[in-house]
């Protein structure tokens, strides 16, 4: 079994992954327009402001859309798994797996909250249905 992929840190994203490894979900927020964005980059994609600060959003959102994967692209991924795009309460969208639940429990609109999955020395943000008891 191949190990699942580990993100590569870049100048713009290192803090995102290092904070995730410490169990904190952080995103860049534009000081000019006040909006969070994902993924982290060198400027705000909404107003092109370049004065950014790292802050913690609520970590909550909803499933914008999803799929249940039955045939993985490589043996590194155990099936079935839920691949989803999460719309965060603050607006930005991001890809993640919906974990700690059965794939049948996931629908468009399911409320979710952030959790973390260790990957190598790091961790990647994942989401689980709010109220999941697993």
């Amino acid at each position, binding site marked *: 079994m191949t190990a*699942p*992929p*580990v*993100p*590569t840190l*870049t100048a713009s*994203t290192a803090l995102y*992954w290092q904070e995730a490894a410490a169990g904190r979900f952080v995103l860049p927020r534009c000081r000019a327009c006040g909006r969070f964005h*994902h*993924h982290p980059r060198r400027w705000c994609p909404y107003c092109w402001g370049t004065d950014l600060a790292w802050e913690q959003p609520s970590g909550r959102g909803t499933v*914008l*859309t*999803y*799929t*249940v*994967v*039955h*045939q*993985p*692209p*490589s043996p*590194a*991924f155990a099936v079935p*798994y839920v*691949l*989803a*795009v999460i719309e965060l309460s603050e607006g930005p*969208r*991001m*890809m*993640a*797996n919906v974990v700690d639940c059965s794939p049948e429990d996931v*629908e*468009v*609109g399911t409320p979710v909250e952030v959790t973390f999955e260790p*990957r190598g020395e790091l961790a*990647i943000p994942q989401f689980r249905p709010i109220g999941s008891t697993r």
Partner: protein
Amino acid sequence: MSSRALDGRPAIAAVEELRPGRYPDEDAAGMPELVLRRFLEGAHVGPDDVDGLLVCPAGMAAGRGADIFVHERLNDALGIRPRFCETINVGGATYTIMASRAALAIGAGLADAVLCVGAGKFPKVGRGGADAMARMISHPDFEYPYGSFIPALYALAATRHMAERGTPRDALAAVAVCSRDWALRHPDALMRDAGPLTTEMVLDSRPIAWPFNLLDCSVPCEGGAAFLVTRGERARELTGQPAYLLGFGEFHDHGNISHASNFATMGAGVSARAAFDMAGVSPSDVDLAELYDAFTINPILLLEETGLVEPGKGGQFFLDGRGAPGGDLPVNTYGGLLSFGHTGDASGMSMLIEAARQVMGEAKDRQLDAEIALVHTYGGMMADHSTVLLGRAP
């Protein structure tokens, strides 16, 4: 409405396509030469008839790095010294966008006749190919670690479309059935000998990524095609009935699919509205549609976004057999990527070639009464949209 007719009345004057399949003796550099050999055998043009060349990069879908200087190699191979020439890539939208670039160049006096070439290899998905393509089309850090890969990313559009517009799962299967029915009428279609499909066969095939089963996915293969765009006057000398470029439009939405503006539409409507506006015609004037169909959700979504059916009615359109042979708006009349074959880097060629053949009256056993044909392609994960309208009259 009055048409804003393009300067020079650019038209497609000749098309030739390789039979989709596997070409194990050809590497990525050899494929465009194979396509050109086919074109030279079929189209009666010589080096003096061409002063523009557009070609796709070689080897991209194989995931081993693309050659972006193919135009230079083909100039030498063809013995031409064009006035307008480049290697261009917009993924699956490359070829309809080549047609628009050629038309613009002709209109601006940069060229009189532009040869457009596409050729593709496709890795075998079962031998690490799926993973190689997943790395290429996903964000390496914010998507790939979550197990993203091509069918799953399109499934994100399907699930959202189903939830937002009530598209039933059966309708996706009906798209595959429709395409197979057309493939049975095309001598070169990869799945022609596999015989007809039923909805049940699609629903019973192996699950890949909900809602897609194996038969909701296009068939990987290799191939390519070439076409010549010239001034209308010259096109009429080369062929009895050219396919005039009435209008075209494009729109570029996201880079990675996580940033798609809208998963139920993927931004596809903008390019169609621009094309209709340029052509001065409306969706009700369209006689047939060729819609890029890597997966079964695509023709449903694209029919709605191009305005050919109302939002939310795309699924029912296929359940009612309206796109199939005998239907009122034939869709993917060559079998689509689903049943004709998905020729890797060259995939976006097949639907443009078929639309041109239908308009030019060269579609043989599947010939329809096609005054105006719509072609919609996209590149990336439904990111770069391109719509072209072809017609019999300039």
